[in-house]
């Protein structure tokens, strides 16, 4: 296989992530990355902006890119060559970021999913959280706003908890009511946040168990991957739930979907070239 350049664009509910790779067989060189918070703006325009930005970063022209792969909510992205679904891309991206990963927990703004993968990043099984938003980043963001704390404080505050409060894991509405009651009872923000993290962590540990992820490393991806409070709550929950996995994050976890899209795009391009059908 000759050297090619591919792009991955991941439109999430809160953020657009774009990456650029140079791929030659099994070797992949990361050329550029960019994120943009959506904040009521058109995600497709943001996708175009971030794409142009990574091309500029890498000094690459649009025409030099062999395959632009989209993922997330980007099915209608006009300039993409093809689209891959989030399970497929997060699995591949996680294995790129940490080759030991055999399970992935993708926790985004609206839902979370557990994915079991093999050493190549191929999806073996997956499950999503149910419709309820209490296991999602958006819920945590709302709670942080009620408590008057910044999002990047959530993790460290949660780790300072000494007596976490129990929060409903059934429903975001009930959980929000719980939180309002806790605030009026004078419970500290740390104990409230830890309680929420524990509630989410138990659900996620059960999700991992249900897909048959039994041992090894579970890499966290998506918008909540860098929440250190959630990572530590998850490791505690896995011990309690007897799931023999270690949850870890990666500084670039947020890009896992885009990375997976870009790398699968390269794989697909190679396959199409072999079949004489390159897109």
């Amino acid at each position: 296989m000759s050297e090619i350049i591919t792009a991955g664009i991941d439109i999430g509910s809160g953020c657009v992530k774009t990456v650029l790779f140079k791929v030659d067989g099994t070797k992949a060189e990361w050329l550029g990355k960019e994120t943009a918070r959506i904040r009521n703006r058109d995600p497709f325009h943001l996708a175009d902006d971030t794409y142009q930005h990574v091309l500029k970063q890498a000094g690459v022209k649009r025409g030099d890119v062999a395959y632009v792969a989209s993922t997330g909510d980007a099915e209608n992205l006009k300039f993409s060559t093809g689209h891959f679904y989030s399970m497929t891309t997060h699995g591949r991206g996680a294995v790129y970021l940490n080759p030991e990963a055999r399970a992935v927990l993708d926790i985004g703004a609206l839902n979370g999913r557990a994915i079991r993968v093999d050493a190549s990043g191929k999806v073996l099984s997956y499950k999503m959280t149910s419709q309820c938003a209490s296991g999602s980043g958006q819920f945590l963001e709302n709670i942080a706003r009620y408590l008057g704390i910044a999002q990047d404080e959530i993790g460290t505050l949660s780790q300072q908890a000494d007596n976490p409060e129990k929060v409903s894991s059934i429903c975001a509405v009930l959980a929000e009511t719980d939180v309002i009651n806790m605030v009026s009872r004078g419970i500290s923000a740390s104990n409230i946040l830890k309680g929420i993290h524990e509630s989410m962590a138990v659900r996620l540990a059960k999700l991992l168990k249900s897909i048959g992820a039994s041992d090894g490393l579970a890499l966290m991806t998506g918008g909540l991957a860098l929440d250190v409070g959630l990572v530590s709550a998850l490791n505690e929950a896995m011990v309690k739930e007897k799931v023999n996995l270690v949850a870890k994050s990666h500084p670039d976890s947020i890009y896992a979907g885009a990375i997976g899209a870009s790398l699968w795009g390269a794989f697909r391009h190679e396959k199409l070239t072999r079949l004489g059908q390159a897109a």
Partner: protein
Amino acid sequence: MSSTAEITARCQALFEDLNFSAARAWKAKAPGRKVIGFLPVYVPLEMIHAAGCLPLGIFGGGDQMEVIHGDAYYQSYICRIPRSTIELGVTGRLDFVDGMIFPFVCDVIRNLSGIWKMMFPNVWSKFFDTPQNFDPSIGGTYYVQELQELREGLETLTGRKISDDDIRRSIKLYNENRRLVREVYAFRAREPWRAPTSEVYLLMRAGLMMEVEEHNQMLRDYLDAAAREDRPKRDNVRVAIYGSFCEQPPLNLIKSVEMAGCYVVEDDYALVNRFLTEDVPTDGDPLEALALAYLKYSVETSCKYVPKEEDKGRFHVEAVRKCGAEGVIYATPSFCDPALLDRPMITHRLADAGIPYIAFKYAENSGQMQPIREQAGTFADSLKLWS
């Protein structure tokens, strides 16, 4: 010169109009005109046309109609199309329809014909029982008699005789219609990005609500426009969809499957004008010609008996190979007895032939498309990367 967007917009307006304004307008144009409604899967429209009537496809209420009265007539564990058809009738949306033909699909649709007779005694209703024996001397003889009964029913309704020549003229027009329909499907199979299934589907559904001459022109216009327009090709997989021959999926489901990265290159939606796969001869006895075409040159659906178990699904495997599909989505309406009873046999046959497939259920009013997108999307991913 119309564009595909203009043609599709007109078809969508017809498809969404549950008051059937266009058919009402057709009827109002001249005194004595009659409109004959018919249900899926197949009715020889030539007979209705030869009687001077307008055939009107009634494919349930879709996802835009709330079923209130219809639920009272049926138990909960059957499909939705009979409930929404009853709803269309009870709410007066079909009050201009002079006759209704209920072809054999399953017990539910057969019983709907009986219910219709009781509920609307002034409407001519016919249960059109297509043969399950494909020996011309047995099933053929029976079917000619059934067609003759249909002819006599239409004659009584309209008060005029239907000559053999009338039927032959209609067969000729419908042969042209079938040829053009096949051409659209062949075009879609070759270049699916130029003729998305969400458009082709509307084109076919609208064709079952207008005069055949008008539909023929519309098909020609669509083919011209689709060939003329430049649309970008995406790296999508080619799939065939089976199991959707009676109760139709909501348009959003068809769009969701396409959006999920699938080019649909073969399907069994609204089969009526694709049911016969070859021209019907226009010489000789026209009823015998229609009967023989049904016995010898018609598509296989779960409504047709397949005597040998080893032949079940062979049609699907051959069709998948012919259109170059990479996989099959077996999408059936919930509680569809024929499609769901056939599903294990057909999917086993696909698996034996090395054709990947997924299966799911829907209702004509399904509203939650995220699970469909996820299933179709991950299926497309697996075909793209690992098939």
